């Protein structure tokens, strides 16, 4: 189990990472093609739905929301891991985040973009979406600021723009490297433009450090607020199964959970596809896995809290919804969620699994499936068993259009992510340098003071 070598040459870091930007392997093209094909499916579905009407999704009264909203939450949730790795761990000076935070941050951005698409897909009249934007207009009419959906829009806009900015700002020194190392061509022009003339001067670094830290500080509460607001889409309503006080922390925990699971998946894929074995090392993976395990347990706990508070409350309608989740039409999916979300992560407690890449890959996919099911199980059962008995237990199954759109969203995400990986360095070069520099300094210091052995950190 090798961690990053402390004596690795900085030039090699540049070389290795920059190599990933060029000459894609065949596998890359295969993945890209599959992603585009998946996106094509979604586009086809959307064209059909746009032309014919929302009814083709099989939604109905009372099943007003379906997989679109569930997937929306799923993708929003996924975005939280990037913030976790780049902002929270940054503040905590956990240096192992450095080789992996860039792609996590990119994941944040792209999953937010995917989530945003679901809002559009969900709307009955997407061509009028601008009505929901608070911009001064001739009509003099404003959107309804009381609506949690508007908070959502606002929060997502803030989060997306802040994430892009954070990603970009953090990437400027790397872009400068690219600018310096790339051959002439469109890439060089792009990097020259984007690197804003970064030269690594002391003044730039000084301001950079403060800025990066400040934005990180903003991002943490922002990330928490975003998913709390998504939770309030449900929590603010009066519907049984939604009107639950513990929803905001539950959603945030779920978000971090699915994000971490996604990071594991992408970690493994990137490590393999771009041959980043040297940077995305197993000790780092192990740390993420442990983090995931911890969050899984938090999520499980919050889930239990939700059930308990419903169960011991006098809100019979909510109780009915819970019973119906566990025994009604949705029971297989609900139990699937419990299994994937609470049982499967228990395997992560085993040390051998923590570094077993094939198993971890499978587990991470299962966790993501569980988290997707969780979102669906939040949205759908309340509709089929709301307060009003006349509409109870009306069965509804999402049509191929809904499934196609969900399927395609993964393609869209993959497409964006794959393109990103080829255009921008998916490992932060300057930070890996910092990391190995500080580590070597540290070990040197320890060696000098003769405490090397005592520290017991034979990272090699």
């Amino acid at each position, binding site marked *: 189990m090798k961690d990053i070598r402390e004596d690795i040459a900085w030039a090699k870091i540049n070389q290795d990472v920059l190599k990933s930007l060029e000459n894609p392997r065949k596998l890359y093209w295969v993945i890209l093609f599959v992603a585009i094909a998946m996106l094509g499916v979604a586009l086809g579905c959307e064209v059909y739905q746009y032309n014919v009407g929302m009814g083709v999704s099989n939604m109905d009264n009372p099943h007003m929301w379906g997989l679109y909203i569930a997937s929306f939450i799923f993708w929003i949730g996924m975005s939280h891991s990037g913030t976790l790795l780049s902002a929270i761990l940054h503040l905590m000076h956990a240096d192992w985040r450095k080789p992996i935070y860039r792609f996590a941050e990119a994941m944040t951005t792209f999953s937010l973009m995917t989530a945003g698409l679901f809002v559009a897909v969900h709307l009955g009249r997407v061509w009028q979406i601008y009505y929901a934007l608070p911009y001064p207009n001739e009509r003099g009419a404003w959107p309804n600021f009381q609506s949690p959906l508007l908070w959502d829009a606002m929060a997502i806009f803030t989060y997306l723009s802040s994430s892009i900015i954070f990603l970009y700002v953090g990437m400027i020194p790397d872009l400068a490297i690219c600018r310096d190392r790339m051959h002439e061509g469109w890439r060089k022009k792009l990097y020259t433009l984007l690197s804003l003339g970064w030269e690594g001067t002391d003044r730039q670094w000084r301001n950079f450090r403060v800025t990066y830290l400040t934005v990180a500080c903003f991002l943490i509460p922002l990330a928490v607020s975003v998913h709390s607001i998504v939770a309030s889409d449900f929590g603010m309503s009066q519907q049984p199964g939604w009107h639950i006080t513990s929803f905001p922390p539950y959603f945030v925990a779920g978000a971090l959970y699915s994000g971490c699971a996604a990071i594991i998946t992408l970690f493994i894929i990137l490590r393999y596809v771009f041959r980043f074995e040297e940077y995305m090392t197993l000790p780092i993976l192990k740390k993420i896995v442990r983090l995931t395990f911890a969050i899984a347990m938090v999520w499980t706990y919050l889930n239990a809290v939700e059930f308990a508070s419903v169960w011991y409350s006098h809100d019979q309608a909510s109780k009915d919804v819970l019973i119906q989740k566990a025994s009604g039409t949705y029971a297989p999916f609900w139990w699937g969620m419990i299994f994937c979300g609470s049982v499967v992560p228990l395997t992560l407690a085993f040390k051998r699994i923590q570094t077993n890449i094939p198993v971890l890959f499978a587990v991470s996919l299962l966790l993501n499936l569980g988290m997707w099911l969780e979102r669906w199980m939040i949205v759908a059962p309340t509709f089929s068993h709301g307060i009003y008995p006349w509409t109870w237990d*009306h069965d509804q199954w999402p049509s191929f259009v809904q499934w196609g759109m969900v399927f395609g969203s993964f393609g869209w995400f993959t497409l964006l992510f794959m393109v990103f990986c080829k255009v921008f360095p998916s490992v932060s070069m300057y930070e890996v340098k910092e990391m190995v520099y500080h580590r070597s300094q540290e070990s040197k210091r320890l060696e000098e003071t003769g405490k090397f052995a005592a520290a017991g950190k034979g990272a090699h």
Partner: protein
Amino acid sequence: MMDSGFDRRDFLKVMGWSGAAVALSGCGNTSIEDGKETLVSYVEAVDYQIPGVGVYYNSSCAQCDAGCSINGKVREGRVLKLEGNPASAINRGKMCGLGQAGVQHHYNPDRLREPLLRNGGSGETITWEKAYALISEKLKGVSGEEIAFLSGVVSGHLKVLLGNYLSSLGSKNHFVYEALAPGVVRAANKKAYGVEMPRYNISKAKVVLSFGADFLGAWVSPVHFSQQYAQFRKGVDGQRGVLIQVEPKMTLTGANADRWVPIRPGTEGILALGIINALGIATGDIAAAVKGYDKARVSKETGVPPGHIDKIAAILKLRSPSLVLAGGAAEGYAHGSQNAAAINLLNHVLGNVGKTVEASAAVPFPQMAPAKGNTAALKSLNDGLAEGKYKVLFNYAANPVFTAPGAMKFKDNMAKAGFKVAFAHYMDETALQADLVLPLESALEDWGTQVPEYMAEGAQINILQPLMENVHPNTRSIGDILLALLKQSRAEEYKNYEDFYAYLRSALVQNKAALGGHAMDEDAFWNETLTKGIIKLVGTTAALSGKAGISGLKLPAPAEIDEQYPLQLIPSVNISLRDGRHTNQPWLQESPDPLTTIVWDSWMEIHPKKAAELGIVEGDIVEITSRIGSIKTQAYLFPGIHPDAISVPIGQGHEAMGRYAKGYGVNPLKIMDAVFDRETGELAMHETRVKVSKTGQRVIVVKDESAAGAKQIREKIAGRVYTDNVDLTKEV
């Protein structure tokens, strides 16, 4: 009116599309446009026609035979909505769903537009002149006996004209057929009260005991009875009326009853006699005759618990006056007349005759009184057709190919007639068999008079007048057609009448003195008549003459259960589809059956207990087999039906009649036995025995109620209180 040389119809012209635009897609045109849409105004206008403001015309509803008066809202020459005319004593401004769907009859896209002549398997469009010539040619050399005219209920001037036409042909063969007519009850009433249909004063009764009379749903004059029912529920001095409904399959009325008593099908008469016995107030031969009907026996034979019989008797005894009604479920047997007689006897015993069963008025023009339809007429027509007696068959407002029981084989017999003419609105099953199909104007385009069979207060003649110009220009009024045909033989006599309108107008205006307009000049009278839409008359009242008699009353013991066909088929009457005449009106198709909330389809109601026995669950496609044939439909578990019976609603299962009717559901009449009431010869609707078997297929029942069934578990949605606690006198 203006003397501009335009006749009234010109003002009914549809104004151009955009006088006040109907926004077909309110979300389509989203910007300000200049010069894209066309505005069309009237060439000539009258004062009361203002674009954007509705004009109301009074007319009459022709959706069923109850004779409600309507108030049609017309905008820019298009009729938009039918509302009740408050001046009518029958509906007092109210309308049922069926009546309101009249506009969909009018605007139905499947209406016939041109006269059609059969040409092999298909219809060939011909001109009216050619059609008339053809009829005249076919009638040549055919004797009056060989001509048959089948119609639904006709009344008023149309009936007169039709009578004249038939007499001009020398035919006496006018068959008036109505599939769901209360023929047996009429006959029993005639015996018991001296009139076929007395006035039932529900609002005066303190207790209504109804044996299967669905007076809130589809029986006789439901809108009128519904209003009476509302008053009856409010009661007199806060004494709320009590409704007890005895029937094997819950009807809408049963669903509103304080006590719904499921009874073994066909034993209604026994229960009636049992109640008379339990009342113990009968004397003389009645008392003697009912002596045998003690509680134990009645309970055993009818399946009604003895406690119920006691309670019913007690409440009837305590609260007077009451009212006992005999309706559909009681009369549909071979011994239907006996059942009805026994039930009517109860009214006599309780002393309700003269109190809640009152004499009804009739219009003083007997020639205009409705020709009441029944099913016995169908039988004799069918027999005649089977013998090949008729060479020419006219058909108007009846669809026997659809409604006649399968056992009659009406379609085959009809083919034996040489030349069949159908006057029809739609290409329905019967019109499909005709050789010549003549398209009719809708009731909202036509002139006419209507005399309701059931008069609410006094007597009235309803006026039908056009609310707008013809949707399809080549359709004609049935009156115009008859007039044209009459002119073929009696041109001289009718030469003064250019069209039916002229005939009608002169007929009414000539009698204006008798119609309450003696002081007015002709135009004033005519205008007032059209404005009001109703001519109210004092009417002649035939006193109730019948008396309580039990002689000849013989009730058979309940039928043994047939091993092969163990279940009784109840073809139930849906409140909006009735006999299937209006199935093609989409509002009615989409309007859920009140008890099952099923739409756009047929279903079989079966008691959950029986269903469990047979292993049937909701949505199972079952095959219902009688001696005649079998039908397949979905099962619906319905607690409001006797376990020995199943029920399939009438009205669906059309094989023709256009896009909204064809291919939906099944027609239970197809498997109906031709059993007739022994006294009246009326078709016994409930005498078909069937067996039910699963086919193994299952569907999701298309219904409005929740999949789990209509139960409120915890939240209070629909509340209920008992009369102990309420004080209706304090209510507004």
